[in-house]
């Protein structure tokens, strides 16, 4: 489980490798919030290499979405596989987030 970040002006891209769960969700939150504090407005989290997400991980994404919007920014999620899309649909979070098939898709018009 790890997070790789790339920064290009106000665009922050975070690649999630492995699960996003109770054990590491705080690390992701802090990492993103630190970058937002330093001017990141467009935040893209890429789950192409991600594993499952538990309720704590989903909660962290909800929290980040709110904080980023409060700062005038936007959060987009990309690369969710069928399992993760099922999770977002079950929890109706597909109505809250912008979900994109790939990182490239998410960057269009971002």
């Amino acid at each position, binding site marked *: 489980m790890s997070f790789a970040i790339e920064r290009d002006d106000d665009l922050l891209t975070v690649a999630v490798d492995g699960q996003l*769960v109770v*054990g590491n969700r705080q690390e992701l939150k802090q990492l993103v919030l630190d970058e937002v504090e330093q001017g990141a407005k467009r935040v893209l989290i890429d789950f192409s290499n991600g594993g499952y997400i*538990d*309720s704590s991980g989903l*909660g*962290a994404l909800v929290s980040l979405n709110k904080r980023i919007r409060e700062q005038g920014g936007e959060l987009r999620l990309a690369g969710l596989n069928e399992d993760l899309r099922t*999770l977002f649909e079950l929890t109706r979070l597909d*109505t809250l987030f912008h979900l994109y098939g790939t990182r490239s898709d998410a960057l269009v018009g971002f």
Partner: protein
Amino acid sequence: MRSLVSDPGGGSLAPCGEWTIASDIGEIDRVVLAVTTLCEAAGFPPKVCRLNVPVALTEAIANAIERGNGGDAARSVHVSARIDDAGLCVEVTDEGTGFDIHSARALSEADGWVEREDGRGVFLMYALMDSVESSCNAGHTIRLVLRRS
């Protein structure tokens, strides 16, 4: 973590395992991986092994650590898993007095649930398992059942 696993590859004995862990969220992944491995060896569908079992079990153990044991590392969580022809049964027992699982589940019907940071754990257990039961005896036990069909 103390563990006891018998016949994970199948055979005459039902695949099963037991684990006792401290109330440390860092311990969750190893137990989840062990149970998921039992399910894979027992022929459960890949999606069940990738999503249903790990997410529901993570929720149950995290609840036991954080709510049941209040994060007190001196308190332990016991997990037992058994697979037979009917399916998977996992019991997660903490040292707490339990909580109203039905009220926790009902959170999903409240206004604003989608925007909440918390309140999805019990919902996900119900959504991903065939049966979720709660009981209190010597500690609080959550019983998760997933049928094969």
